[in-house]
């Protein structure tokens, strides 16, 4: 690897959304000699499999704040990053069952307080938003007109291009074999690539998604992160209204993302009651099911038919399976580690896309300032030690439908 430097001020492992946005934010703050090493290609991990739904709706106030702060970048990416990110403000509809009506009200209040353009909508209003949706099963709905979706790969590429323009080196098809520490294991001294090239550096940011587990294990730090199978299907809805919103159906624990160009719908499972995990080693070796099982397809179809009984001509187009980079509480790691100079920015547990712009800033804060400089956003809930300290982030009004940290 002749064109890779021998030394760097910061090495970032992984050029997914998080590695690229962090590289960009650091470069913007005048950090020089940033090298990003990516074992495959930009956006080839969870980012390339992502549904790209954008919403301010969370039951976690902290995450709502991160989504609100991030929205501006999706809306004005041309000005901010220099290219489009496929932002489609088709709106985000969120529906719950009768048991969760109060929780929804409380959460919508919290979201409004934090600047989300959202509000409860009546069943009649929902009928206008999506006439084929059978509202009878549902208890209540909220709607955010600025929600919708964006393109995670375009967003990843936009950050990578913007970072390169500021002098960041992004090397693709160049994996990190190991992180190198000082002899006593207390501090970072460099990384070694799979082509045996060594870069000396005092700082490594591990933004390697599920790959973080293996990299950190080798230097004695346990990062509890693994793959969780996500199974998705694409359908053509037949006679549905055009221009429908993204839809979080928390009656059936399913989400729907429309594709504006084709009118197709992506159906994703949001039911985490019976998770299927992928061992990080199997994930790294690319040994996991890439297709959806018949059972999962059937379940998704049943849920859809329940919601949209009149769409009899809806057709199944395709199905696939991906992997979330999941942590035990569904909350990411944006933190230092017991090793000086080693930082984590990983474990976004299937909901990282919408908060990407804020995460880049937070990670840059962490490295340069040692603390968050983003208003109202504390880094403590993202620390690695939260499990042993039994101090986990908890929403004030969690939904009862599933153990669901995505919302």
């Amino acid at each position, binding site marked *: 690897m002749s064109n890779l430097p021998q030394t760097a001020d910061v090495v970032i492992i992984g050029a997914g959304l998080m590695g690229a946005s962090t590289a960009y934010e650091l470069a913007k703050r005048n950090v020089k000699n940033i090298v990003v090493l990516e074992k495959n290609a930009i956006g080839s991990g969870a980012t390339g499999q992502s549904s790209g739904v954008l919403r301010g709706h969370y039951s976690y106030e902290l995450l709502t704040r991160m989504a609100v702060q991030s929205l501006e970048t999706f809306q004005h990416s041309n000005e901010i990053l220099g290219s489009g990110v496929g932002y489609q403000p088709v709106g985000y509809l969120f529906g719950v069952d009768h048991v969760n009506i109060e929780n929804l009200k409380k959460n919508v209040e919290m979201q409004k307080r934090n600047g989300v353009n959202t509000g409860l909508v009546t069943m009649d209003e929902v009928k206008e938003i999506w006439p084929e949706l059978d509202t009878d099963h549902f208890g209540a709905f909220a709607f955010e007109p600025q929600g919708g979706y964006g393109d995670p790969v375009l967003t990843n590429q936009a950050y990578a291009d913007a970072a390169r323009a500021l002098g960041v080196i992004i090397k693709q098809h160049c994996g990190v074999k190991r992180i190198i520490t000082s002899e006593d294991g207390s501090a970072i001294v460099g990384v070694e690539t799979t082509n045996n090239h060594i870069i000396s550096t005092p700082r490594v940011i591990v933004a390697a998604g599920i790959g973080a587990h293996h990299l950190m294990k080798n230097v004695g730090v346990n990062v509890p992160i693994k793959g969780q199978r996500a199974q998705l299907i694409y*359908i*053509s809805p*037949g006679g549905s209204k055009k221009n429908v919103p993204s839809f979080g159906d928390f009656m059936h624990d399913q989400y729907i993302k429309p594709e504006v160009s084709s009118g197709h719908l992506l159906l994703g499972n949001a039911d985490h009651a019976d998770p299927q995990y992928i061992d990080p080693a199997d994930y790294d070796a*690319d*040994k*996991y*099911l*890439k*297709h959806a099982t*018949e059972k999962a*397809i*059937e379940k998704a*179809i*049943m849920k*859809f*038919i329940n919601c949209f009984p009149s*769409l*009899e*001509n*809806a*057709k*199944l*187009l395709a199905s696939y399976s991906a992997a979330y980079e999941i942590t035990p509480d569904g909350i990411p790691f944006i933190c230092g580690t017991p090793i000086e100079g080693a930082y984590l920015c990983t474990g976004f547990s299937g909901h990282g896309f919408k908060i990407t712009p804020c995460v880049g800033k937070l990670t840059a804060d962490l490295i340069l300032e040692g603390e968050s400089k983003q208003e109202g956003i504390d880094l403590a809930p993202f620390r690695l030690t939260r499990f042993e300290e039994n101090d986990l982030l908890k929403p004030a009004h969690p939904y009862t439908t599933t153990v669901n940290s995505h919302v």
Partner: protein
Amino acid sequence: MNMVVIMKQTFDTEEKITIENGQIVKDNVGSIMNPYDEYAVEEAVKLKEEHGGEVTVITVGPPEAESALRTALAMGADKAVLIENEDQPLDEYSIAKVLTAAINNREYDIILGGNMSVDNGASQVGPRIAEELEIPHVATITKLEIDGESVKAERDAEGDVEIIESTLPILVTAQQGLNEPRYPSLPGIMKAKKKSLERLAIEDLNVTEDDLQSKSKAVDHYLPPAKATGRILEGGLPAQVEELVHILHEETKIV
């Protein structure tokens, strides 16, 4: 008019295929209906819509092959037959014998199949069955018209079109371009799960020991060699031509 479709479940060739010890590793690889068989099912369902009758889909395969049959049922087939075979190694010769035995006692006017399966690519089973049943066959068809007893088919003959006239009963194998297979509807998929499916063992059929003896043996499986990366020649046109000629003479030794 009654249609029989012979079909097969194959692994999804769009997924990453790995080979260990000369065998394809099937773990983690999805199974699909052989894409050429989709054209056959679609054509059969269209014939039913036009002429009435029933579509029966038949496969020889492991219990999991049920899902490919269910896909055909969701597309509009009426009946499905699964001849279960897990352990017996069968080749095109023996599979044709088994399928012939299964079709022989059924009413059929036309038998349709894919022109080949994407896993083995032999293109033999269909024509062999036609020979066994002593009926005409037309392979790799791209168009089919049936009027009373007469059949007119267009076939893809290495890029040319051959127009063939024949009569029912007949066997045809489908080539890409014959039609655009429909996507199954969501209610159709759910209904197909409840349609009855006939399960047979090879022993239930009128086949001899000899019929089941494969005539061919796969000695090895290997992946095609990895493609080398391309090279873009630079400079003005004369320089590029000169370099290309040099490469062809000296490096690839093609000319």
